[in-house]
């Protein structure tokens, strides 16, 4: 491991989530702690009909030739353009386009495209499928199409670690800057998984909440939680070396200071019963940032609202950080955006540092008594923060912890 401490400056944030389009709308909604889960008319025939959709997303007004882009890539582009505006950077007007990297992770990629084209293959045969199947469906196309659109010619990749993908992207982006390979990285995650195949697959695993009332379905850390609610969207950071940000007088929201990544090496979906991988990732992020556990004021937990994740994650946090750090999960508001979740939650963690406000866990009415951690619930907490951590854990037992500094 490189020993020298290195922070990547977050100079732009772009968010397209069920909590709204734009960072302002998002921050307002997560601080209010109002859930976005609702009955989804498109899921009429499915065993689970609740989802968290991006509200009022009209790609035809936001993207040129939207028919060439799967929904997950549309989300990525809209979030990227917002992040660039926020960073006061103009697409295609780079000082050196080879020094601009794009690293956008996804778990499911263009699954809506793949599912529709597979149906066409079965019903109409090989000549019935669209030539755009792969250019829209591949998992690396959000990152690829964004790079084309903004004219970025540096390293371009799409990490896939399931629900940790966006976190991997931000961690790798920080390392790309630290290694001196780029000056600017567009980094985050994008996901559009509210599709027949994904909803059915998660439902078959009994991973999704089946609660009657959708507004109470996503309830991380609650004693009565019964699964997650599927969400969609994208979260994008503009990251720069601090020197590059300083040179152009960029406003810095916060810094990515630590990156921990690990594997449970235990089971494809169940977390390790003692949270071994999670603890490794959190400790690695602390060590990478050169911090002690007691310096961290807030943890934006993975907190999916599934029975298994929340109990094991809370015990892992308790062991590494004790019970004085404030913990919340914004998935009560947004649902679970899979590979994009890690990225939007990284943004919420950064905004917590910037505003000195910790968003509450929506719907957390009866905290599970087995959890001995300081859960922020009911209303947001004002607190001056220096460091915050964000956890993301993916199927396959792949874990990412990111540490942010004010």
């Amino acid at each position, binding site marked *: 491991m490189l020993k020298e401490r290195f922070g990547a400056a977050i100079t732009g944030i772009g968010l397209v989530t069920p909590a709204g389009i734009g960072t302002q709308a998002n921050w307002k909604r997560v601080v209010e702690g109002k859930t976005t889960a609702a009955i989804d008319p498109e899921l009429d025939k499915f065993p689970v009909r609740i989802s968290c959709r991006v509200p009022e997303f009209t790609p035809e007004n936001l993207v*040129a*030739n*939207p*028919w*060439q882009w799967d929904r997950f890539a549309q989300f990525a582009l809209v979030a990227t353009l917002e992040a660039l505006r926020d960073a006061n950077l103009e697409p295609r007007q780079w000082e050196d386009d080879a020094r601009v990297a794009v690293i956008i992770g996804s778990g499911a990629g263009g699954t809506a495209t793949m599912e529709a084209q597979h149906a066409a293959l079965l019903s109409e045969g090989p000549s*019935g499928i*669209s*030539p*755009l199947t792969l*250019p829209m469906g591949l998992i690396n196309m959000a990152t690829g199409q964004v790079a084309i659109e903004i004219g970025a010619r540096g390293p371009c990749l799409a990490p896939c670690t399931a629900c940790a993908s966006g976190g991997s992207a931000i961690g790798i982006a920080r390392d790309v800057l630290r290694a001196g390979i780029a000056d600017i990285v567009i980094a985050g995650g994008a996901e559009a998984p509210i599709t027949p195949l994904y909803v059915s697959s998660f439902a078959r695993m009994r991973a999704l909440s089946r609660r009657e009332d959708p507004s109470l379905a996503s309830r991380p850390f609650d004693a009565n939680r019964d699964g997650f609610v599927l969400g969609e969207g994208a979260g994008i950071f503009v990251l720069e070396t601090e020197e590059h940000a300083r040179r152009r007088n960029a406003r810095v929201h916060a810094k990515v200071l630590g990156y921990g990544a690990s594997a449970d090496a235990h089971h494809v979906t169940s977390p390790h019963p003692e949270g071994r991988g999670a603890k490794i990732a959190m400790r690695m992020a602390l060590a990478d940032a050169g911090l002690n556990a007691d310096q961290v004021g807030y943890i934006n937990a993975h907190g999916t609202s599934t029975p298994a994740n929340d109990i094991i994650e809370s015990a892992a946090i308790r062991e590494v950080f004790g019970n004085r750090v404030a913990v919340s999960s914004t998935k009560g508001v947004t649902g679970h955006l899979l590979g994009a979740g890690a990225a939007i939650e990284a943004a919420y963690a950064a905004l917590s540092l910037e505003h000195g406000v910790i968003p509450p866990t929506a719907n957390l009415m009866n905290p599970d008594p087995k959890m001995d951690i300081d859960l922020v619930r009911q209303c947001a907490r004002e607190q001056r923060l220096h460091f915050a951590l964000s956890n993301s854990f993916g199927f396959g037992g792949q874990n990412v912890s990111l540490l942010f500094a004010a």
Partner: protein
Amino acid sequence: MSVNLDSIVQVIATRFKIDASRIVPEASFDELGLDSLSQIELALSLKKDLGISISDDELAQISTVSDIFKMVNKVC
């Protein structure tokens, strides 16, 4: 078979979300922003919506909206 120009224009407008007023007979695929993959996609839409079959070889030889019209309606 006979297919009128308007229905071809309609298929292009719907599939590619292009304002129909831009789809004039002499408009080239390039001008409409349709690259080579999109042209294959166009052939697919014409087949599904209007029953028009355009082979890959034929597709390689046409470049405008009016080319489609002429090709579909040619008598020999």
